[in-house]
């Protein structure tokens, strides 16, 4: 079955290749014309009025290594017209006269101006200038030269997305920009559960960075995540007061995405990649033998052995790996407690390797007046599930074009279409996957029917995922962007912009009753007894409008820039949800097929709301001034109004002031050799966070439901007022202070920056804790304070000689937050506490322990001292023994208890052990080039994160009924291994919990470094590709998440942080194995 599937995948891929080949052929056909130097007819159609007398040709090379510089700009000075060099550094340009001055520039090189003169051939050798000071950086509502930036803005280059074996843009960004921390809790394509954070937490209410794509806020994170990575020109990360220009949504920072535009002669690029995923980390689930042995080992250590409902004989059978009928204790299992059990490795049955692919094709180019780029992307990624398809397919089309209507008026029109199809099994995830049942139930009985676990059925994850129905989500995104830019003259320009974003999504979920049978083939139960089907259709639209006036003027050494604008946005949401019972699988999966009653799908479905809308209206301005690019000042102001607040409370103001000093431009440093850049920056800015405020929270609404009455059982309507409200609440007000320094030394070979910041959320929306007599959740009010401090450092080295060049980049950041005020706060208890005043968000409090009992005398003394009234010291069958953990009476009150009503925060013998946030997050970039070879390795990791597991697999026998972890095998105390860190095995639940639940030894300090990316490429030399009539041909190998060093000992993915081991049915947090990916790919340009 599986081989057939693999063949199918290969066939699909072959078909895809054929299609691409035919695409290529047609493209080559075009390129024949495009590469014909006499084929000027094409240009003349597009060029309307400019007369071009001279044709200049030439090659641009790098003075450093003599290699051609591709994609260098060749621009006619004083105009916007120009061209770019091809892959060999060749260019052709028509110029009006011999007096024309051409500007040659490229990122990483000093630009040169050359007057045309009489030469028809101008070859240019550009000096390398790896200082990126001239680089233009995208900032909020505009661009700025890096040299004159005053804010903490990090620009990520498109290379980051190239040749990567991931399709999710966010995953490619991981570790690339210090301060931008990207977490995913699962490596399940389409269901990664990604969380972005810039500079740590801003609020107890969460919140993630605002993402702006080509000037308009992204509709939702998914619009960004699912973008075709090949479309991204650059990404700017706004971290400090520079973000204030985005006002009420900027408190978590802003990510600005700019898509690629066409430039130069027509160019066709084609990239293809095929990927294979394989399982990287095995969660610590046992085989049947290991499972049985664990019980036996525990029994050996226990005074009173406990074999749960299995009984000793059964457990011995497990350990011996015997496949047979077993007698278990509850007579309701199987036949009077007789259940057939055999080695059944659920994990291997469920997971394996899968293939994926990604193809992109783009056609881009420009004439003097118009630029265009059309790109098409297609990809498919699959998770590790073997029993059924679990993956995502993405398709995208983007057309970016702009046109100079007149010399002064430019019209931009961008259209983007995206389609994502995510498809997964609808049942069998959650803890039933592998965490719940012991590995002793074969998935099928000898008759080939699904075998019901325990001989009584109901769960069987292989059956449930294979045949239990599907969860299909199809999203269609369409976005239109229009810009009109007018150069008024005298330094003034005006811009109008509008975007319209439309999202249609439909989610069909159906559950099928998969019958399960006992070993003898009798029907026992079904995976669900209540098959249902539901359909959720959501239509969302998002429109933004903006009008801006710019003024840029220099008076001598005084440079001014002023921008003022108005923006307006409106979000409309409409959803229709249907849920019907009585679904029978007839091969047709529409809600109309179900015969049962229509219900609202249960109270857990928050998506079945009807419709809403909300709007934002803002005034904004920015003033830049610099003196000789030496002393820099920027002022930002913004006034935001939102429909989410009551009349009178709708508006709020934001702003920032930032200054910079280019010290290296000072006279006294002018002659310091090797110092290329030294800049000091400082900023203070305010911004808002609106997470946690619903569209109409300021009014109480009536919620409705049903209740059953009557002899026949009829539903009667119910109604209630949903909660308490307040009208006076507003945005959270966040003030960010930043000081930073940038430097470059040794001819820009060494460069770096360091930033330190402090962020205060002064109006954090919190639920003030009232007595529960209130009987309702108190409305959140702007009463909390959260302070975050942190730093970021970047260090880059670039070097090389002759054909060899290399670069090393390091970045690291850390942030720490503290909940200063929460109006009451929560009491401290053992475990993860999301909010405790005086502590970071998501702090862990653990029992302090002091080693293991090594003698009975120690145990006796301990019991005598602490096993009193109100103490949690276990007694009876769970009484303490040698090898158990000794908890410390931290508060000295004579009992062991995690609560102490007399303590200030009610805490007993527990202490703070750390927070759930990752600390000292770093990235290491290594790159090298030698002739046609290129090499990139990117490592990413963190040095500190407190991880404490929850749920059924956290430690042996804290729950007796489910599967058990073997992560601690061999590391626990035994009479032979008395120096072990971990306590002895015990199958007495009370004791196991004493030893493991929220104890400091159970908290792990996660450190890891992971090879996120490895790319090795080879580009064919120019003489070969010239013969092939190509611009570029590169093949590469790419790997993702290839290996890691981690301090976690329980075999979980260190990136998933605190992921509890299946405490709930949230599928993304269930045990889904971590995958590694390898890929081979091809880049082709002509």
């Amino acid at each position, binding site marked *: 079955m599986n081989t057939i599937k693999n063949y199918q995948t290969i066939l699909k891929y072959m078909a895809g290749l054929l299609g691409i080949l035919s695409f290529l052929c047609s493209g080559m056909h075009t390129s024949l014309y495009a590469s014909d130097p006499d084929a000027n007819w094409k240009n003349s159609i597009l060029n309307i009025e400019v007369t071009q007398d001279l044709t200049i040709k030439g090659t641009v090379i790098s003075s450093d290594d003599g290699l051609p510089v591709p994609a260098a700009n060749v621009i006619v000075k004083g105009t916007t017209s120009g061209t770019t060099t091809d892959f060999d550094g060749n260019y052709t340009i028509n110029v009006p006269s011999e007096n024309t001055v051409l500007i040659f520039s490229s990122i990483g090189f000093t630009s040169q101006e050359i007057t045309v003169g009489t030469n028809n051939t101008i070859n240019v050798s550009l000096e390398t200038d790896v200082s990126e000071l001239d680089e233009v950086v995208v900032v909020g509502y505009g661009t700025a030269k890096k040299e004159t930036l005053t804010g903490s803005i990090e620009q990520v280059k498109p290379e980051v997305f190239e040749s990567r074996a991931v399709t999710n843009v966010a995953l490619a960004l991981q570790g690339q920009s210090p301060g931008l921390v990207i977490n995913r809790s699962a490596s399940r394509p389409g269901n990664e559960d990604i969380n972005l954070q810039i500079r740590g937490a801003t609020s107890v209410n969460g919140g993630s960075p605002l993402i702006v794509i080509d000037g308009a806020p992204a509709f939702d994170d998914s619009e960004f995540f699912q973008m075709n990575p090949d479309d991204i020109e650059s990404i700017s990360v706004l971290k400090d007061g520079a973000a204030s220009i985005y006002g009420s949504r900027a408190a978590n920072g802003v990510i600005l995405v700019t898509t690629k535009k066409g430039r130069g002669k027509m160019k066709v690029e084609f990239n293809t990649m095929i990927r294979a995923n394989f399982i990287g980390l095995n969660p610590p689930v046992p085989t049947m033998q290991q499972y049985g042995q664990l019980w036996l080992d525990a029994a050996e250590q226990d005074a009173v052995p406990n074999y749960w409902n299995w009984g000793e004989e059964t457990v011995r059978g497990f350990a011996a790996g015997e496949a047979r009928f077993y007698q278990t204790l509850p007579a309701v299992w199987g036949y009077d407690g007789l259940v057939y059990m055999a080695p059944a490795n659920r994990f291997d049955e469920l997971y394996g390797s899968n293939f994926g692919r990604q193809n992109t094709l783009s056609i881009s180019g420009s004439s003097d007046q118009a630029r265009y780029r059309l790109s098409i992307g297609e990809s498919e990624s699959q998770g590790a599930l073997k029993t059924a398809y679990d993956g995502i397919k993405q398709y995208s089309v983007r057309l970016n074009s702009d046109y100079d209507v007149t010399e002064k008026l430019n019209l931009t029109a961008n259209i983007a279409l995206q389609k994502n199809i995510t498809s997964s099994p609808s049942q069998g995830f959650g803890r039933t996957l592998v965490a719940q049942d012991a590995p002793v139930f074969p998935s099928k009985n000898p008759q080939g029917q699904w075998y019901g676990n325990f001989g009584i059925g109901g769960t069987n994850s292989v059956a449930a995922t294979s045949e239990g129905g599907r969860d299909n989500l199809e999203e269609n995104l369409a976005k239109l962007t229009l810009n009109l830019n007018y150069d008024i003259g005298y330094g003034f320009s005006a811009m109008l912009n509008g975007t319209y974003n439309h999202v249609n999504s439909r989610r069909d979920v159906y559950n099928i009753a998969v019958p399960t049978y006992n070993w003898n083939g009798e029907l026992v139960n079904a995976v669900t007894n209540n098959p249902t089907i539901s359909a959720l259709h959501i239509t969302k639209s998002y429109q933004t409008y903006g009008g801006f006036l710019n003024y840029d003027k220099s008076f001598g050494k005084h440079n001014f820039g002023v921008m003022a604008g108005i923006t*307006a946005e409106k979000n409309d949401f409409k959803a229709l949800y249907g849920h019907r019972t009585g679904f029978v699988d007839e091969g047709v999966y529409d809600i109309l097929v179900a015969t049962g009653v229509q219900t609202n799908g249960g109270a857990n479905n928050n998506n079945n709301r009807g419709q809403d809308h909300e709007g934002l209206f803002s005034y904004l301005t920015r003033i830049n001034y610099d003196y000789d690019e030496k002393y820099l000042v920027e002022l930002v102001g913004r006034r935001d109004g939102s429909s989410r607040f009551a009349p009178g409370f709708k508006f709020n103001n934001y702003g920032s002031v930032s200054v910079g000093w280019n010290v290296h431009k000072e006279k006294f440093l002018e002659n310091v050799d090797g110092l290329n850049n030294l800049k000091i920056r400082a900023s203070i800015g305010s911004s808002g966070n609106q997470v946690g405020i619903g569209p109409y929270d300021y009014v109480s609404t009536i919620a409705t439901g049903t209740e059953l009455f009557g002899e026949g059982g009829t539903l009667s309507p119910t109604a209630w007022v949903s909660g308490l409200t307040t009208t006076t609440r507003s945005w959270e007000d966040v003030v960010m202070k930043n000081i930073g320094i940038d430097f470059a030394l040794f001819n820009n070979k060494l460069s770096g920056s360091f930033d330190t910041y402090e962020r205060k959320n002064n109006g954090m929306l919190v639920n003030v804790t009232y007595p529960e007599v209130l009987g309702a959740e108190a409305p959140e009010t702007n009463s909390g304070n959260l302070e975050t401090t942190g730093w970021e450092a970047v260090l880059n080295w670039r070097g090389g000689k002759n054909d060899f060049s290399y670069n090393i980049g390091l970045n690291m950041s850390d942030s720490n937050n503290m909940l200063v005020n929460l109006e009451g706060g929560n009491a401290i208890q053992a475990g993860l506490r999301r909010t405790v005043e005086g502590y970071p968000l998501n702090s862990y409090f653990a029992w302090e322990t002091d080693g293991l009992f090594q003698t009975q005398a120690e145990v006796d003394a301990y019991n005598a001292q602490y096993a009193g009234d109100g103490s949690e010291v276990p007694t009876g069958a769970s009484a303490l023994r040698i090898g158990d953990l000794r908890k410390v009476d931290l508060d000295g009150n004579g009992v062991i208890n995690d609560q102490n009503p007399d303590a200030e925060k009610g805490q007993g013998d527990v202490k703070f052990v750390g927070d759930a946030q990752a600390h000292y997050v770093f990235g290491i970039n290594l790159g090298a080039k030698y002739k046609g070879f290129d090499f990139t390795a990117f490592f990413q990791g963190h040095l500190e994160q407190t991880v404490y597991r929850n749920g059924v697999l956290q430690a042996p026998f804290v729950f007796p009924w489910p599967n058990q972890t073997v992560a601690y095998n061999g590391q626990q105390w035994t009479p032979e291994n008395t120096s072990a860190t971990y306590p002895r095995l015990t199958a007495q639940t009370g004791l196991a919990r004493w030893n493991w639940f929220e104890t400091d030894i159970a908290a792990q300090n996660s450190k890891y470094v992971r090879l996120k990316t490895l790319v090795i490429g080879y580009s064919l030399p120019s003489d070969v590709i010239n013969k092939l009539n190509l611009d570029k041909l590169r093949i590469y190998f790419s790997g993702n998440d290839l290996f890691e060093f981690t301090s976690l000992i329980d075999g979980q993915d260190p990136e998933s942080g605190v992921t509890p081991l299946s405490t709930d049915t949230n599928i993304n947090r269930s045990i889904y194995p971590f995958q590694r990916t390898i890929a081979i790919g091809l880049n082709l340009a002509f």
Partner: protein
Amino acid sequence: MKKIISLFSAVFLLLVSCEDTFLDLQDLDSVTEQVYFDDPQNFEDAANRFYRGLHSPSPTMNDGWDMITDYGTELSGRIQDYGQGVNTATDEDIYWNNGYTYLREINLLLQKAEEYVADGGDASEIRESIATAHFFRAYQHFRLLKRFGGIPLVTEVTNVDSEILFAPRNSRYEVVEQVLSDLDLAIAGLPQTATGANLGKISSIAAMAYKARVLLFEGTWEKYVGTATDFEGSGTEDNSVAYIAAAVTTAKAVMDSGQFAIWNQNADPIMENNSYRWLFSLEGAESNPGGYTKASNNEFIIQTIYDFGTQNTINSLFTQINFGRNSPTQVALDMYVSDDGLPIDKSPLFQGYAVQSDQFIDRDRRMWANFGELVLEGESLPILAITAESGTNLSNWKFTTWNNYRVVRTEGYNYPHLRYAEVLLIYAEALYERDGSISDSDLNISVNLVRDRAAVAPLTNALVSANGLDMLEEIRRERTVELYMEDNNHWNDIRRWDTAKDLLSDDLIGYVIEGSEYETDSSLFDSSNAIFGFKEDYPSGVGPVRALIIDPSSNRPYNQKNYLWPLPINETVINTNLVQNPGW
């Protein structure tokens, strides 16, 4: 050029002028509080909402089942920390929180009703909804009383600035007065009956039956427990005489209404005197051997309606978990009298303990109905290792469906919160508590109707005196076996009788060992499993014998302080006016 400038200016102006288009947006899919409650139907809908506050097997707001079962008592092998008396004060208490959440909704309806009438609405149109609100205000306050004793009474809509948030506790006496006065308003305003389409709603008689329960509870609590559990500053009062007397008349009024009857189909031979067994899983004709349906039942006075057809089923593991965990102790088994109406230590019919199934011979049919599922004729089931989860080797059978009629979670039988049998038992108990005696004729219209269904000889003064029985003890026994596992009755009973402090601090007994197969057959019982040892003089049906302890008294410091739960710590921290219960 001009065109362009005018275009730009026009667009700018347009943008500025339409601020409200973006900011002044109204809710599109919900009705707001301001416009609701202008129609009697709105009040009825809001009152319907209160029914989810009845504690049923489908927990709302995370309430647990321990509030409707006998977990943790001396009858149950399911050991609970609050039954052992080792529980400690917690930060939060879900029952505290939920009680006040329900109360806020109830008070809101009453406030809206006042506004409705003040605005010229017709009070009579919303009378029933108001009375329903009063019933539930009583129900929720009483529930808080049972758990915590005196609590802050809430009779107004609370807000963040309400003084009541930081008020001291009301004494239990004030709470009971409020509960009774709310019940009187409910009785006055509710319709006499709730049948047909209204089945499941509270009727006037139902509110009266509930009032009888409250009166007996509080009357006997004040009589036996007195002020021992009152928090400091409660004041003292003793209304026990008046409450007990009122319990008699209130119960009698319910009986005299003639609306309800014991569901006894024992005349039908196919029922084999097992009507009690089928009552708690009564659904369609296939749910019992006699082919009876829900429609035949008019014993349930307050009940939650479930329905399989419309998939409004129990939806929880209630029956499975009760079956798996709530196994009977030896004390629970020994409670049931023999068919002759005599306790087993007095009855010649009792067959002893030699084989486990012997105990079931000639016993009260309710014993089989509640625990008979696993019993194999002529056999003893093996004794399991002792854990807090598994208890003993028998299981609770009450509320489980018959013959796999329904899969767990899909049971659609109606669930009783208060049924007629309890009213009869209230009547008998209150009468005896009031007079110190009860006539045979009063026994015949009360206790003996219930005993008749269990195929047990009637309780008579003659039987009592001839066999040296205690009438009160026999009436209490009747309650214990009849109302087993229902709405926390036994928990409330042993506290108000002040017997819990003795019953629960004693060794918990799993099995009689002496003289049984367990003594001789090591495949049935491995004595090394007796980790807590044996009680040598367990007063069994055959006299003092050795019995297996499944939780020793040393684990069970249960005492009178445990009659009430501690107030949640968070509450006493925030509201320093709240005095903690004594001993906590």
